[in-house]
């Protein structure tokens, strides 16, 4: 789970009712059985007063799955669940997500996590996941940007494995610079582009005249000065 950007300041989103069988066509017994299992799993971790899994529940889930709650795979799980609010899984999200994964038990979920990693790394999904990671950090109503420290941690989590040298250097810069205190989504999406397109560490094909965000222009300048 990515670090929580802020304490729980706003109320969790409305949860759907637990029994949601209105208007649905008659499903087969097996399906109902599967759904029941998923629901049961949900209830194991859900906070009964809110009707959804809250941060504590997620921590418990993580420990049961045997992963650290700061592990990137939990973020991937959130992506697969299309979870809207950081730190919470609604029942709908849980149901849809687990169905999509094709799991209905904890052991199956554990296995599915490694498959999930591969799925995310597919080029068609990766950018979507990457963008999702940023959105997931927008915990406040109308929040558009994320603070630098959280961004650094997020970069490390999401891109650190694939682009270690770039991310390490970029994080160093973000921490020492003073021009920006927050990062917006446009800058975020360009970090990925930067890692993918710009040769490193020479940065030879970077041209500030192009449409790169200013923060990257500044970063490249800083890099070039350091190595001159």
């Amino acid at each position, binding site marked *: 789970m990515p670090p929580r950007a802020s304490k729980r300041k706003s109320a969790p989103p409305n949860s759907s009712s637990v029994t949601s069988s209105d208007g649905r066509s008659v499903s087969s017994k097996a399906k109902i059985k599967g759904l029941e299992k998923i629901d049961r799993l949900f209830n194991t971790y859900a906070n009964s007063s809110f009707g959804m899994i809250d941060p504590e529940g997620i921590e418990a889930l993580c420990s049961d799955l045997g992963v650290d709650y700061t592990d990137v795979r939990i973020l991937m799980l959130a992506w697969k669940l299309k979870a809207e609010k950081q730190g919470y899984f609604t029942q709908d999200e849980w149901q849809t997500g687990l169905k999509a994964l094709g799991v209905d038990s904890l052991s199956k979920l554990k296995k599915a996590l490694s498959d999930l990693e591969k799925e995310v790394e597919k080029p068609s999904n990766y950018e979507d996941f990457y963008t999702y990671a940023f959105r997931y950090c927008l915990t406040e109503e109308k929040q*558009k*940007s994320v603070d630098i420290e959280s961004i650094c941690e997020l970069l490390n989590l999401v891109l650190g494995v694939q682009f270690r040298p770039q991310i390490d250097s970029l994080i160093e810069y973000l921490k020492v610079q003073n021009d920006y205190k927050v990062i*917006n989504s*446009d*800058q975020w*999406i*360009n970090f990925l*582009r930067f890692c993918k397109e710009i040769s490193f560490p020479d940065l030879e094909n970077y041209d*500030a*005249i*192009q*449409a790169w*965000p*200013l*923060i990257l*222009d500044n970063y490249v300048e800083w890099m070039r000065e350091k190595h001159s």
Partner: protein
Amino acid sequence: MGCENIEFDQGWGEMEKGIEKLKRILAGEKETPFTSREYMTLYTTIYNMCNQKAPHDYSEQLYDKYKKTLDEYITSIVLPSLKDKHDEFMLRELVERWLNHKIMVKWLTRFFHYLDRYFIIQKSVPALNEVGTTCFLNLVYEDVHPTIQDIVLSLIDKEREGDQIDRALLKNALEIFVEMGLGQMNRYQDDFEARFLQETTNYYSRKASKWIEEDSCPDYLLKSEECLKKEVDRVSSYLHSSSETKLIKKVQHELLVVYVNQLLEKEDSGIKVLFRDDKVDDLSRTYRVYNKISQGLDLVANVFKQHVTIEGTAFVQQAEEATSNQASNTPGGHEQVLVKNILELHDNYMTYLNSCFQNHNLFQKALKEAFEVFCNKTVNGSPSAEILASFADHILRKGGSEKLSDEVIEETLEKVVKLLQYVIDKDVFAEFYRKKLARRLLFDRGTNDDHERSILSKLKQQFGAPLTSKMEGMVTDVVLAKEHQSSFQEYLRNNPDVHPGLDFTVTVLTTGFWPSYKWFDLSLPSEMVKCVKVFKGFYETKTKHRKLTWIFSLGTSHINGKFEPKPIELIVSTHQAAVLLLFNASERLSYSEIVAQLNLAHDDLIRLLHTLSCAKYKILNKEPSSKSISQSDSFKFNPNFTDKMRRIKVPLPPVDERKKVIEDVDKDRPYAIDAAIVRIMKSRKVITHQQLISETIEQLSRMFKPNIKAIKKRIEDLITRDYIERDRDNSHMFRYLA
């Protein structure tokens, strides 16, 4: 003739007779010209021999014989005649032989004409004429053309060096080269022109390297013009016309392009000297000569630009040094001189532009770029925008210290507007101008409304309304204030009981038009409090929807000082008046008492007290009488104060507004950039990054030049505020979000 076939030998015998006769004629021997009868006989012989039935159709043999005849003639007569000749004589011989050959071919072609009609078409073989030329080509020309080329070239060289040569002979000789091409120019080009051009290049290269050292720039140009004329003449006299373009290009290159910088930058006679000595003819010649060379004017315009830049920069340097070397008695005096110099420079070079350079846009551009270099320099900390604004201010204040005529003022203001186009930070100019305009309108009694409006309209025309809208508002405010004042006077007359007992005038300024002024919560003397109250009452009868904020720092008071020697009228600011009037009630006041009574900040009060007690006019006595104000001082009215005048102005020290102006302008620029970007995005909807940047710069160019980083920053901000977004697939495209 009968129906009998003619035997070949017999027929050919007849032809031979004719051929021999022809040869004799050509040799100049006494012979009668061909009669019609003779001609007809010869023609008919051929005709018959070609129309006989096979195997007596002798067309082919006759064709061969024709050729052989020519070959034999050439070999036996022509070649020997050329063998022992040299130089011009050889040339002459060749020309004559070629002429003869052509005559021979002409006659033979007539005799053998029937072959041309059918045989050559049937067999797809060259026509008789062509055969004739080819014979000469193969047997004579191929052999002699290198020698002929040498001879021709050496004659041309002789002529270039000044000797007279036989031009007609050369013309004829060169025509041979052309004709040998059989309709193409390749023999002329390969066997003569190529080397001719090369030798021409060498020749002029040598001359140029000599002349560039020895001759002055005007002389060199004259010589070059002469050479070019001569070469054109040469072409029309004896060269083939197709050589002209190539020839002239080579000559121009060697004489005028290779040494252009050395030539125009000559220390004692180059462009800068021509300008200095006003050599209009030489300058025009330079233009004329280089105009004929492709991209030649670029070279001249470049030197011109450098020259103007150096001159302008020298003036700037002068001003810098003058101010730092000596304390001038007129602050900014050197800057005034600088602007005058630059205006003069501009006038001069505009004249040259028109008289010598045909107002060509290359030179216009060069002038513009040169001026942009030195019109954006800072002189002694003062940015050029400020210097120009001060210059305009100086002129508009009662016509400047020289009391200029209206016409001259108008002209000068026009020129100032022209000069502004070269200044990049026009918004800085506008802000300085606005501040000075405020002072003129409020404090300078002699401002000429017409001139003020005239320069504003000129500025508006050149640079658009955004630059001048606030200033126009200011001028209007002052005009309206006068109207207001008369209705205020009427109000006072109609309400005599509220009259404060003082003469006073109020000028109402529209916020937003005028520069922002610091507001002081000054405690007014009671006399003035009354005035404020009365005006407020009056103003509310006019409009209830406006709020009045009193800026006493801009006010002026006339106070009668009852000094013992003689009474003197003091013209002071309202703040100063407030201080002085305190002394009507108390003879002696300490600094802290004054502070308490007036409610002013320390910095401001210290400045005021300084002007009243430590500066030129000691209206108050200070204890202790040190040179500066300290918070422990005390003040007394100075009854012994006097001056030779009956009325004096006690000035306030000028405040350095430069920093604030630049700060204010810098603060506003991001908003201007935002507005431009949004405007562009709204109309284009989708646009590339590059285009957005360049259009933003263009849109703002009338006010200032934003740098790319600043624009990028605003784009980022606008993305965050959801005005625009980056395209998902195309990372260098932006889209407008409605």
